[in-house]
């Protein structure tokens, strides 16, 4: 339900896409998605691609991280074990 991980599409055959999650390979069902092509990233959940990852938006999030990574936070908090 929440456990969706990004997977890279290697090849497609009908409703099935060969995808890779790191070194793991899987035949994902992409019947819920429009036009998946090799090179796309999909979110894999319970064996199905539930959405594609939008590369432009992903890049935007990465850009945000890179910007923040360059700044040091104002107040360094100690780690408080909960």
């Amino acid at each position: 339900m929440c456990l969706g991980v990004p997977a890279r599409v290697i090849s497609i055959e009908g409703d099935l896409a060969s995808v890779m999650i790191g070194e793991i390979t899987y035949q994902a069902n992409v019947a819920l998605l429009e036009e998946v092509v090799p090179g796309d990233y999909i979110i894999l959940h319970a064996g199905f691609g539930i959405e594609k990852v939008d590369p432009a938006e992903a890049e935007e999030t990465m850009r945000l991280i890179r910007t923040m990574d360059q700044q040091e936070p104002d107040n360094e908090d100690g780690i408080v074990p909960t």
Partner: protein
Amino acid sequence: MNGLIRDLFFRYFDNPVLARAADAASLELPDTRIAFTTDAFVVDPIFFPGGDIGKLAVCGTLNDLAVAGATPQYLSVSFILEEGMLISDLERIVRSMADTANEAEVSVVAGDTKVVPKGKGDKVFITTSGIGILPEEYSPIGEGRNIRPGDAILVNGTLGDHGIAVLLQRESFRLHAPIQSDCANLYPLIREVLKGCPEVRFMRDATRGGMATVLCELIEHRPFGIELNEERIPVNSAVADACELLGMDPLYVANEGKVVLVVPGDAASQVLEMMHRHPLGTTASIVGRITEEHPGKVIMKTDLGGSRWIDYLTGDQLPRIC
């Protein structure tokens, strides 16, 4: 049955004691402390990447002796076979056990076999018992009697390989991953460590329940706590990815070739180096330390600098969607 014993078991486990075929093995043991352990093995599937139930049965018992500081000497092996199990499978398993025992220089000196009707077993169950010589100086190790704040916690390599390898083989998930069980005899590695650092405080092999369970058990009712450093915990990226996909935590996944050690703080880097030089310790890591703070609790500093209380898990981990 006699044919099976003669042609299979005696052939592969060949040694003078067994060859006498007495009802009990007569062993000569030095006048010293003996370590004695027993374990049953029921893993499904019986063959998996990196091993099989036979190799597991031998290594499991050897490791129980080794982590107590003992030198393994003799094993007994008992089989419960389900009617209809393939002789070729059994032979493969027995050969694997013999190879593992021979490499470990231990003898199988006693054994038993029973056959149960189809449906009353699960192909094969194996019970092994083992005897080892335990030098007096190592006797505090099993209970961790001398552990104190400042001690370092090490593990000899990547976590979760065995559990994930077996899970992916057993279930119908159709996830394909280059993951192998880490099933191995730890005695050669442990022997090196003890030679170089006889003051090892504690050792335990991290089998079912993973490293997390070993650590929780260790500090229960003790006047000290454990601080773990997530960044230092070694996990293969394929295992990490599989766990991510299935919603499991490598800290709790079974291993069959991993030992958790507690050593004096100032010996930690030396022990680490020793392990790195050994094939079973190339990815060894100092994963945490014993602390005066939060006695009875394992607290892990996460990669992000947050913190997480590592507690016992209720029951086995299961793949989840939520």
